[in-house]
């Protein structure tokens, strides 16, 4: 079968972060991990071309997936394969969106990434095959992917045994023992030496290392971003008050301060009276403008990005983070102030 393979700019050998803004393009034959994939696919399947897009462009541009899909169609793709993206957020998002677009257009497609990749929820109906967390696990990840590609090409269904990532639903149910009694049982089991005993799996909360300090703040562009749900009064774009499914952007060019009555917080998790009396306390535009005038920071980015953190699932928030990072990098922003509630 004719296979098209998608990789990001780094694995295509087109450069690192400096090239993350490049748009969709197609290269002949295989590059990078595609060579190993081609070898493992054997003679029955041929990777006819490699699709490439910069991570920032793919993560911040809604039409990128569609453009790539059209290129794949033009090249006569019968199967589309993306990744492995490992734990890389923007790359994972790009892979997920591409295979989702392909699958819904009737082109069999599958992606490879780590199950914790923030992009995974965007894969839609397309299967995602689990990869390792980093490129150190390239070989076993590509081996697993190749086996899955062969199965898909043969028209077979993928299962968790193939490494297919499936959302594991946790179902609520009534039990005879109330929670307090179960808590006592659990304490006794743990004291008895069963250190793995728990009803809800714990762990999986990564620690975010702070970025290195900025050398010359006076020359950088700084963005204001918030999960405090600050929107124009009346909430014209209907941002949710909890459990956000999306984020919004609002221009602040030429604005010195967020006037009370013109802006409001629609967050549902706290009493917004004080925030609405002075919205600058959630998005510190007034203070940032002062720093900009004094020359402490170079320039303030022309818009602020906003969502609501209240009850928003970690997976969704991580995806927003990936999208925001790509968005701001593309706009030349070097630092962001994230205000949280």
């Amino acid at each position, binding site marked *: 079968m004719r296979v098209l393979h998608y990789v990001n700019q780094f694995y295509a050998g087109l450069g690192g972060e400096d090239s993350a803004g490049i748009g969709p393009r197609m290269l002949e034959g295989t590059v990078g991990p595609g060579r190993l994939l081609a070898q493992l696919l054997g003679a029955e399947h041929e990777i006819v071309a490699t699709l490439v897009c910069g991570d920032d462009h793919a993560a911040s541009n809604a039409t990128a997936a569609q453009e790539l899909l059209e290129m794949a169609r033009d090249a006569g793709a019968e199967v589309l394969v993306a990744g492995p993206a490992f734990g890389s957020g923007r790359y994972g998002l790009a892979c997920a969106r591409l295979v989702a677009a392909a699958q819904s257009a009737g082109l069999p497609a599958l992606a490879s990434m780590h199950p914790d990749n923030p992009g995974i929820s965007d894969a839609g109906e397309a299967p995602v095959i689990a990869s390792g967390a980093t490129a150190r696990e390239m070989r076993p990840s590509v081996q697993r992917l190749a086996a899955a590609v062969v199965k898909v090409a043969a028209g077979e269904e993928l299962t968790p045994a193939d490494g297919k990532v499936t959302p*594991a639903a946790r179902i*609520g149910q009534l039990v005879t023992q109330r*929670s*307090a009694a179960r*808590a006592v049982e*659990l*304490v006794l089991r*743990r004291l008895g030496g069963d250190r793995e*005993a728990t009803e809800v799996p714990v762990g*999986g909360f990564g620690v975010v290392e702070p970025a290195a300090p900025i050398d010359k703040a006076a020359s950088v562009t700084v963005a204001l971003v918030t999960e405090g749900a600050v929107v124009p009064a009346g909430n014209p774009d209907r941002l949710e008050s909890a459990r956000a499914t999306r984020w919004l952007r609002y221009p602040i060019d030429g604005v010195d301060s967020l006037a009370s009555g013109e802006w409001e917080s629609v967050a549902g998790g706290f009493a917004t009276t004080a925030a609405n009396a002075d919205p600058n306390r959630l998005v510190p535009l007034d203070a940032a403008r002062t720093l900009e005038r004094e020359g402490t920071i170079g320039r303030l980015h022309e818009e602020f990005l906003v969502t609501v953190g209240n009850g928003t699932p970690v997976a969704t928030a991580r995806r927003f983070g990936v999208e925001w990072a790509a968005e701001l990098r593309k706009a030349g922003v070097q630092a962001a102030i994230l205000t949280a509630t």
Partner: protein
Amino acid sequence: MPVLRRMVHEVHSIEIGAATQYEQHQLMVGRDQAEALFADPALASVRVHVAAPGDRARIVAPLDVVEPRTKGSAGGVFPGWMAPVNRPRGGDTHVLRGAAVLAAGYLPRNQEGLIDMSGPAAERSPFGRTNNVVVEFDRADEATWQEAEVALRRGLLRLAVHLADAATSAEPDTIEELAPPHRPGTPTGGLPRVGVITNLQTQGAFKDVFVYGRSMTGSLPTLFDPVEVEDGAVVSGQYGHPALRNPTYVHQNHPVIAELRARDGQDLCFAGMVLCPEPVAQADKELVSTHAAWLCRAASFDAVIVTKEGAGNADNDLMLKVDALEADGLTAVALYAELSGADGTGPPLVAGPRSGAVVSTGNYDQRIKLPAVDRAIGGAQLRIADADATAAVEIPTAAILSALSPLGAGWLTCRAEQELADQKLVGQMLGGTA
């Protein structure tokens, strides 16, 4: 010190009548007597209703719930509200078990919830199983909502005492002994010393809980006498997330204390309790968590069950304590309601401990269909469902009062789909219908 006793009088049926009386497990609520207990300049009027298990009735926007209790004419329950804190201790407490008094209706910052007296919501709330005296109210025009809320709280406590007073001369169905925790250094026969930390929400008006009549805002955690909690030293004025609320009733019957006491001397040694505020600033959360763990160590706890109230903010308090305890070498278990989305596939935890264990009290987001009912108390509309209060509705579990009880009073949990499928398979192999 003598062991305190609880005289338990079971209530099997409830009705409204001319005068309050308790006889043969039947509770008659004197309408005028009950309403007079809410006389307050902040309340224009109140109306007393009853709702019993099995009734096709829905209580909309329930507020606090209290279990009827009294120590007789000498008083002594609800210290800080109905009695001085330095009252003579001891004496028997009379309890109307199976009865509850509650207020229902609009209050600012009360997140609207419900109690159904029959159907699936009744199975999920501790208050779908009690004979309820429900008080509707109208705020006086000149009063603030805060004044109305204080008046309601005082009224509910007075009504709880008034109803239990009717049973003081009745023969109790059972007598419960409230053994105090074992002091540090007491020989345990090798059993582990297990205690409880109970976090109380402290977020200002309508989101506060009172200890001896005072908010814990700004306080450090404190060791506390569990018997005092059972005497009503902790009273709720907290109206956030209905399913994640700890009404006064649940503190009076603190489920973790009850379960620890039930196994005291068999599997464990009941070591005591720590009460702790839930401050809103991260540094304060870290401070009280560190200090709470220190208190547990100082009181020679080997293991601790940690409880919370609310969500989000409160989850951070919960998990910081689990981490602080485990870092100190104590075994910690948290009670927590999962937030894994309507289909249960989202990540269940909002904040996670580095180690320790978590008991699931259910999924906040799981939706549930409720049948129509014949009557509603507390309001004519169910705003969360945009429906008539008596209509058939579909709501998240989050709206059912105390269904996800962070104090462990509920019967919900969550299990992984795969685990359930395996159980079913095993059930089929054994010829059962699991």
